[in-house]
């Protein structure tokens, strides 16, 4: 898996300009969402968590779909499978690399959210943990579905259609936990949402790793 992860990080580094474009896309989405609320400081702060995760979700479809572009361009993925590289190692290498990219993107979008939505928080370590678990929760099924749709012409349209219903629990838990971290958590409910995120990560990461070989092999 180390070889697969190394390859993914190298590919991401070589196409780092795309990461900047995805960040600009996410920041723009946050800006546009804020227009929908208007100049209502309390409402902006209340909805900040939801909009942060929506921006991250929309950006994730771009990064996940793009992560298989290099694999399909010259059938490089088939080439690796024929070496033979383990499909499971290839999946985990790509899913971890995608998770890292989404987590970095999430962290980069937090200051934008704080500025636009006046949604500062003192619970930064908790917020970081939520972004790590949420990013990983999006990446695991997202990488599998991106592999499934990578050979389809309408992949940009099909990936969100397949992925969004599946990641509703992760999105719900991440929004609730982030909202509690920003607005305060007097009833200590945040831990329950974090546990839900951990549980879904466990399910997605184990199941998707098993299914990947069936998706990429003839």
């Amino acid at each position, binding site marked *: 898996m180390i070889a697969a992860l190394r*390859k993914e990080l190298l*590919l991401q580094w070589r196409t780092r300009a795309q990461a900047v474009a995805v960040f600009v896309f996410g920041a723009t989405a946050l800006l546009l969402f804020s227009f929908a609320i208007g100049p209502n400081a309390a409402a902006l702060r209340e909805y900040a968590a939801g909009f942060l995760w929506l921006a991250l979700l929309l950006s994730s479809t771009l990064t996940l779909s793009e992560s298989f572009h290099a694999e399909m361009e*010259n059938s490089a993925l088939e*080439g*690796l499978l024929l*070496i*033979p590289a383990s499909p499971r190692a290839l999946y985990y290498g790509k899913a971890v690399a995608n998770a890292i990219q989404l987590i970095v993107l999430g962290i980069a979008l937090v200051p934008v959210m704080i500025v636009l939505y006046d949604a500062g928080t003192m619970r930064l370590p908790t917020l970081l943990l939520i972004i790590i678990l949420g990013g990983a929760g999006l990446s695991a099924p997202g990488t599998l579905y991106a592999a499934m749709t990578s050979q389809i012409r309408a992949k940009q349209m099909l990936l969100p259609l397949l992925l969004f219903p599946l990641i509703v629990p992760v999105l719900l838990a991440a929004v609730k936990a982030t909202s509690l971290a920003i607005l305060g958590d007097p009833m200590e409910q945040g831990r329950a949402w974090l546990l839900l995120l951990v549980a879904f990560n466990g399910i997605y990461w184990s199941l998707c790793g098993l299914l990947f070989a069936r998706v990429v092999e*003839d």
Partner: protein
Amino acid sequence: MPMDALAIDAEHLARRFGRRWALLDVSLQLRRGEVMMVAGRNGSGKTTLLRVLATAIRADGGRAVVGGFELARREEIRGISALLSHQSYLYESLTALENLDVVSRFCGAPAPSPAMVLERVGLSARADDPVSTFSAGMRKRLSFARVLLQQPSIAFLDEPYGQLDPEGFGLVDEVVAELRSRDASVLIATHQVERVGRFANRTITLEAGRAR
């Protein structure tokens, strides 16, 4: 022919795409250290035959033993074989050396150094250039380097002379001779019938997916 001397023993292989049979009832035997030429017109099933035997795609009928392993044992067959495909299997944004380094890290057995293999295919001067800047012929050479890195016992070469210059033709001949000297078997699908006919031990000609 004793079974242990056979690198490939295929019987009645078949593969279809949709309703069209790309390969039908093809049988062949290839000994260790031998070269077999697969000839035939465009669309006759040469590529499909090589891809089935290299386990890139599944057979829809028939059976084959490659390197002593049934086709279902994909990982074992892949461990001892290499496929030079129409697809280059290269990452455009990585350099030539990085592409080979990726392959080398996935190879189970100790592989020769990527730099040495690049030298062998005449690309050492462009080792640090991204593949996106390479011509079709250079990509072909780099794909060949990939095959050499894998040190296969059975090599499947699909149109190895395609896009290469006359010097590249010589390189292919040398590599095939080198593989034979290591007792490796080589299956070559090609339109260069005269050239390969000079050193091939056997020939199979396909027509509309069937052996003629």
